[in-house]
């Protein structure tokens, strides 16, 4: 071990390593590599925490785990294997979530530094806040495919994890999913919703039936078609899909005919929808085509079922089989507990079969390219591919950063990016020129964090405020909220204290335009001042976001109603508003430039048209950006990824500080369906699948989009 042999490390580093106590958060791809580096270097006191258990698909890179460990605690097995490498180290492991109250400020304060090796944004946000609250240096890292990055987070010195806007997850409007799908992903999202309707937790925002409130179809909705009344939500009133399916005994033929014939007939009756679109073609259970449409290179590979394109007839039989086994499983669970339900899991054979079959059948009906099960799994499970080499390289840099922190040389901990190809300077590992300074308007690490929150106080309930805004969007774990100056407690983290408020509309509690709320999270030691701005809710749900958040209230005013979509014109080139059907331009786009052109485009699922790219490029250059300033940060395994853009460096703006306009957040959250429960957004739970810039290898076919 390096630190136990004099002369290997210089004396200062050797002593610092021997005396240190460090925390590794996460024992996955990066965590295993970091732990190996730590024990081999001769660190003596290491703690590691991970709530996950080992899966077969981890074994190609999480090398501390082997086949016999599948199903066991990652933290426990990582410790066990690492101890074989160096039996003299003290490793404490926790098979637990870092977000629980057991790991408060006093826990974090035990360490000289913390290393994140996480795969989801929610946990990253939380550890970020805990390290800020404890004033402990944090090394944040991530990988996606061949790329990765490492950065230091230290209160007052550097950007925090939440100083920069992370690209929002891609969501799709309900009517696209329910009425007018045009891409494979629309059918996949629909199929996952259908799974939940039939077997999972029923969610009214995941209705799969025709949406009669579709504004496009307004005039003709359902006219002369089925004699069904629609309720105000636009759902055709009837017993729930689940109840109906159960009463029919999950009969595959009946279900098929309802979903892929009757509902399609109903959609066809909404004439307006099909004036400029190819109308869908209903299918008949007893007469399914058995040829493989668009049979091309995808269809070979007799060896692997996942790689083969299924015919519609085959999809039909997979549909029937998977329904049979899923309904059986559901019945067995409900025998024990009547309210139980299934949870969709990409690694569950039947659940994945069901989604693959349904997505393909629906794609066929709408004339959309079908996909093989392998590709559908990538999209439905939001899998970000991960490999051993990238994780090893990034973990190596993490530990080199740790050396510098231990030597109190924090300024040397500049962010480092690993690129899939060398940049124009032929750099594969690209360090920043200096540590990125904090964003003075950051709603997390600023001295007095504040945001402006625009929402409809006449519509939003207290519960919605808590779940969708405070927990999901602002990432609080257990918020307490008071109306400033009035002493009225709106939300209490004490169980039962404010239960009565849950269903009440904000306005009923006296929250209106100009109201100032004080939101606190005790565990995170975090207080946020929220200024409420009244903003009328969209006429049609999902058409525009339910709420907007900005660090600077000015950001919410002029652009909001009219020209928002024209120009992604903030100083840092970020898009603050998007129309779900339009080009989604995000800062992940590494602008095509000389030798990088190939990679940069390849990794995008949506590529902005060239003119937009050029515009953005200019913006960036005017700020002194280079193509390598932008990188994707991971989620090593199979989670959504977050996107970073280098913040404006201080030297560039010291002359005219007023021009440095930081956009903390003006993100659009189209509707509730992405704002599920407050839990780390693991892939299984995140029903809508993409972060922009995702490296998920969507097959290299054609992606279409529309420019404004």
């Amino acid at each position, binding site marked *: 071990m390096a630190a136990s042999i004099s*002369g*290997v490390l210089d004396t200062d580093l050797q002593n610092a390593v021997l005396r240190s106590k460090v925390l590794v958060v996460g024992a996955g791809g990066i965590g295993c590599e970091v732990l190996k580096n730590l024990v081999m270097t001769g660190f003596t006191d290491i703690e590691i925490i991970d709530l996950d258990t080992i899966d077969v698909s981890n074994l190609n890179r999480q090398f501390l785990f082997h086949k016999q460990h599948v199903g066991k605690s990652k933290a426990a097995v990582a410790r066990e294997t690492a101890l074989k490498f160096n039996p003299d180290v003290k490793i404490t492991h926790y098979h637990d979530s870092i977000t629980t109250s057991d790991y408060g400020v006093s826990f974090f304060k035990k360490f000289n530094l913390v290393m994140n090796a996480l795969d989801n944004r929610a946990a990253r946000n939380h550890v970020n806040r805990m390290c800020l609250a404890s004033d402990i240096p944090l090394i944040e890292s991530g990988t996606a495919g061949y790329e990765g990055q490492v950065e230091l987070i230290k209160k007052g010195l550097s950007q925090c994890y939440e100083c920069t806007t992370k690209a929002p997850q891609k969501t799709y409007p309900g009517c696209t999913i329910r009425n007018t799908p045009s891409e494979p992903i629309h059918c996949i999202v629909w199929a996952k919703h259908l799974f939940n309707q039939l077997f999972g937790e029923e969610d009214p925002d995941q209705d799969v039936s025709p949406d009669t409130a579709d504004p496009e179809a307004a005039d003709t909705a359902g006219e002369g078609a089925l004699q069904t009344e629609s309720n105000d939500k636009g759902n055709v009133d009837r017993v729930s899909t689940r109840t109906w399916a159960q009463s029919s005994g999950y009969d595959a033929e009946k279900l098929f005919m309802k979903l892929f014939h009757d509902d399609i007939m109903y959609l066809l009756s909404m004439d307006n929808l099909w004036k400029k679109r190819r109308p869908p073609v209903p299918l008949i259970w007893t007469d399914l085509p058995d040829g493989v449409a668009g049979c091309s290179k995808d269809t070979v590979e007799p060896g692997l079922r996942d790689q083969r394109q299924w015919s519609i007839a085959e999809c039909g039989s997979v549909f029937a089989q998977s329904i049979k086994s899923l309904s059986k499983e559901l019945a067995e669970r409900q025998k024990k507990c009547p309210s139980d339900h299934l949870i969709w899991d990409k690694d569950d054979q039947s659940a994945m079969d069901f989604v693959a079959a349904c997505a393909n059948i629906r794609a066929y009906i709408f004339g959309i390219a079908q996909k093989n099960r392998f590709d559908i799994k990538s999209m439905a499970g939001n899998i970000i591919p991960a490999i051993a*080499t990238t994780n*090893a*390289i990034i973990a190596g840099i993490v530990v080199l950063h740790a050396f510098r922190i231990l030597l109190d040389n924090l300024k040397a901990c500049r962010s480092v990016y690993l690129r899939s190809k060398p940049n124009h300077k032929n750099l594969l590992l690209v360090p920043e020129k200096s540590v990125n300074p904090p964003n003075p308007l950051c709603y997390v690490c600023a001295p007095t964090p504040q945001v402006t929150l625009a929402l409809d106080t006449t519509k939003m309930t207290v519960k919605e405020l808590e779940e969708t805004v405070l927990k999901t969007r602002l990432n609080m774990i257990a918020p307490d909220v008071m109306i400033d100056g009035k002493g009225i407690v709106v939300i209490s983290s004490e169980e039962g204290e404010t239960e009565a408020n849950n269903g009440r509309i904000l306005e009923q509690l006296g929250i209106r335009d100009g109201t100032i709320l004080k939101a606190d999270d005790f565990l995170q030691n975090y207080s946020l001042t929220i200024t409420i701005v009244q903003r009328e809710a969209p006429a049609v749900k999902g058409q525009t976001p339910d709420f907007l958040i900005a660090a600077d209230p000015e950001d919410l005013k002029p652009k909001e109603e009219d020209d928002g979509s024209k120009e992604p014109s903030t100083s840092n080139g970020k898009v603050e508003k998007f129309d779900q059907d339009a080009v989604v331009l995000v800062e992940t786009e590494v602008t095509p430039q000389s030798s990088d052109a190939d990679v940069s485009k390849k990794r995008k699922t949506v590529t902005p048209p060239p003119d937009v790219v050029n515009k953005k490029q200019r913006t960036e250059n005017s700020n002194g950006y280079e193509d390598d300033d932008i990188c994707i940060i991971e989620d090593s395994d199979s989670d959504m990824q977050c996107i970073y853009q280098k913040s404006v460096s201080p030297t560039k703006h010291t002359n005219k500080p007023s021009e440095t306009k930081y956009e903390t957040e003006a993100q659009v959250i189209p509707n509730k369906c992405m704002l599920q429960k407050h839990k780390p957004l693991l892939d299984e739970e995140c029903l809508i699948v993409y972060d922009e810039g995702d490296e998920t290898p969507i097959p290299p076919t054609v992606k279409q989009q*529309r*420019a404004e």
Partner: protein
Amino acid sequence: MMTEEMDGNIIELTDAEAELYDRQIRLWGLESQKRLRAAKILLIGLNGFGAEVAKNIILAGVKSITFLDNRELSQLDLCAQFLAPKNAIGKNRAEASLERAQTLNPMVEVAVDTESVDDKPDKFFENFDVVCASECSLTQLKRINRACRKNGVKFFAGDVWGTFGYTFADLGKHDFVEDVVQSKKIQSSEAGEPALAKVKFETITTTVKKSITFVPFETILDTCDLPRDGEPYYLLKILLNYREKHGHDPLPSERDTDSLKKEAAVIIDKYKLGDKIDHLICENLYAQISPVCAIVGGVMAQEIIKTVSQKQSPHNNLFLFNPDTMCGKILCLGQK
């Protein structure tokens, strides 16, 4: 049929392999995985760097890897060599690494050869698709490279000294494919209403065949014309010269002696470097340090994977990790 033929073997992935390699197949594709499945690798030098390369290559799922090493495991190796257990000090490094290496992936054949590379005839290298040499002298590197060239074997070299490291590739004439993505503008005027016509863009991925010709290791050893940030090149020369002369790398016990400085002075004088590389000479360069083995070994393994799968452009030809700046730079040296 997309069955892959390499060395006359038809390789099909099994369901177990598809499951194990799922995440990487999603990155580099089924074809690459099948090519990996056929590749035979020779790894010379089971030090900390070698252990990292071995780990990554075995996890990736090659057909076989042979560890060639006649050295004994030392206390110093334990700074980074995680494949060999502590109680194996004094035993052959390749043998000591076998068990843990095999556990990483039972589907890969891991073999051990305890002879010296000097005892191997040129024909020996023909048995492999890839040779990766570490902890070899300049004389050995030149000779192995020559033997590989002669037999059309892909040659790699790499090393780590403390916090510094490099990788090198001579792939002869290397053919590979690369995905090129283009954005194309299409006009679609639907239903004959030009006012409603939308400009659409589609991205099309095409696979392009490419070829690069590499140069042997000895041609990069006398370069005067270095690009910016190229200083670690001189450090590489100093350390290789040191090894050639002393038969081993600088030891921690020599940290405060002049032996490395003497070797450095020769290069500093020859290239008139002044104090330009003094900060690099002062780095920790004694024994291999685990995180740096991970970085350089990770880059090396990824290059081997890339080469074997014949997908994407390999680095041509020298990668240098600068321990001071954490820059990882590719230098294309020795080109005619």
